[in-house]
């Protein structure tokens, strides 16, 4: 049986519904030793700002039970080097869509990057208003519906590509944030970013990551992510890219059944650099085995 794996996310057709979570995959170069990037639906890049960011002090990560905490602090080369180096590298992979993750410390920062990308050959923009690890910007934008709507509007005014707003799970009401982004004109939503967490090294009597808190990711948090994807799918009409702890094809299918139109794989890349291709293959096999002719049939099928 042939299975249609193509998905259309806000007018952009991906060859399959799998991308990578921003920050876990760089701009793909390092993983290209293991993975044929042409086979991934889309590559979502590490967040890029208007200027280079040095990120946080080390240690920047800590392992936790079934997951990890990170507080990289969005170290990135800034849009100039990114445009010169990373976009041409990724564009070589003709079958794969490019989603550029955009970060900033102020609305102006975000605007600058989005404007700069307007003339670049990339397919979608993902706006990171939910990073828990930078003092200004990031999550502060993502925890207030009015701020979410306002920044979404600013992005949409300037963007030439479809805009994906990436939502923070560290909120009382995720549906409210999703509706605010939709009201601001978001073309799609991605969720969840990491949950704010902390680990203490009891022997050193110190925080395990230098930033004190960090973002918790991995299969440990998958149930929270699936719940939020479900709640958002009930609340809005824009496509959803679901993520949070996907380790295998079954996990990806679970997100789609909860309402995600596509999925991102993050922490699992650290556990298995080949995981993206294994998930794509596994999803296809699941469809074949269960008589699913089009992967899109699964989207939101559990209500």
């Amino acid at each position, binding site marked *: 049986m042939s299975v249609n794996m193509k998905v259309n996310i806000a007018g952009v057709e991906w060859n399959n519904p799998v991308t990578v979570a921003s920050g876990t995959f*760089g701009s793909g170069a*390092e993983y290209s030793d293991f993975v044929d990037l042409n086979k991934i639906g889309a590559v979502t890049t590490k967040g890029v700002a208007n200027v280079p*960011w040095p990120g946080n002090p*080390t240690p920047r990560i800590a392992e936790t*039970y079934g997951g990890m905490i990170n507080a990289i602090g969005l170290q990135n080369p800034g849009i100039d080097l990114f445009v010169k180096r990373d976009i041409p590298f990724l564009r070589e992979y003709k079958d794969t869509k490019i989603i550029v993750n955009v970060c900033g410390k102020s609305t102006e920062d975000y605007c600058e990057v989005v404007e700069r990308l307007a003339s670049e050959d990339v397919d979608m923009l993902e706006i990171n208003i939910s990073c828990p690890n930078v003092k200004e910007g990031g999550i502060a934008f993502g925890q207030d519906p009015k701020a979410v709507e306002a920044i979404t509007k600013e992005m949409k005014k300037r963007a030439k590509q479809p805009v994906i707003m990436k939502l923070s799970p560290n909120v009382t009401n995720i549906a409210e944030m999703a509706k605010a982004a939709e009201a601001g004109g978001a073309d799609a939503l991605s969720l969840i970013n990491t949950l704010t967490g902390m680990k203490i090294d009891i022997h050193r009597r110190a925080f395990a990551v230098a930033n004190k808190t960090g973002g918790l990711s991995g299969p440990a948090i998958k149930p929270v992510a699936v719940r939020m994807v479900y709640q958002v799918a009930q609340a809005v009409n824009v496509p959803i890219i679901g993520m949070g702890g996907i380790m295998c094809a079954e996990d990806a299918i679970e997100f789609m059944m909860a309402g995600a139109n596509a999925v991102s794989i993050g922490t699992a890349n*650290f556990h298995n*650099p080949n995981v993206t291709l294994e998930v794509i293959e596994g999803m296809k096999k699941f469809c074949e085995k269960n008589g699913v002719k089009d992967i899109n049939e699964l989207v939101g099928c559990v209500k």
Partner: protein
Amino acid sequence: MSEKVIKVVPVVKTEKVTEGVFSMWIKDKDLATAAKAGQFVSLYCNDGSQLLPRPISICEIDTKEETLRLVYRVVGKGTEEFSKMKAGDEIRVMGPLGNGFTLEGTEAILIGGGIGIPPMLQTAKSLHAQGVKVQVVLGYRDSDLFLKSEFEPYGSVIVSTEDGSVGTKGNVIDAIKANNVSGDVIMACGPMPMLRGIKAFAQENSIKAQISLEEKMACGIGACLACVCKSKDKDHHTNVNNKRICKDGPVFYAEEIEI
């Protein structure tokens, strides 16, 4: 770069080196052929509660037997799991990772401290094999001189102990001074205070120094930017004076980095 592999490989031998320190030999032609002194591998745990790979330095490379020897200290659940493995078990491994030591100089001073000692063994072998004079300086806590005798075929070996029970009482720099060790290059691995001392010693004495760093890692291949160190120059990846230990290191020239 393209020499990196990820695969499940057989464990051919395991051994307790000393209290809390274990040896594991894994067999794989690709790994043994590609590996160089000072590189490391990532070992993956079986237990599902621990997802991140453990970076373990390469202690010895046997190209004939196609094995790598990994010597590590048990510091948590992951390394504890490794320590319970037996010959015949299999383990998932990615490597070889990072850049090893640049094999250079005519009179090399090799310095290892604590669990930084293992990678210096292959370094000693490789330098010895290409005719460099090898002078090994090992820093221990006490008279538990694990691996020391294994260095002896490749050069002179002196030790420092914190408790003074063997060799020079104090640290590796004390031992170097007490023994008037001199050379044209230093290669070192060990705890950060030791590396700081070595950087200062090398500068004072105008000796070139290569030092191997460690930091908490996630991906092990340069993508996640967890394991950075401050560098003197802008790094080529992010342009912000942050070198990636896993990819640009773990071995750096001491003057390149701020520690």
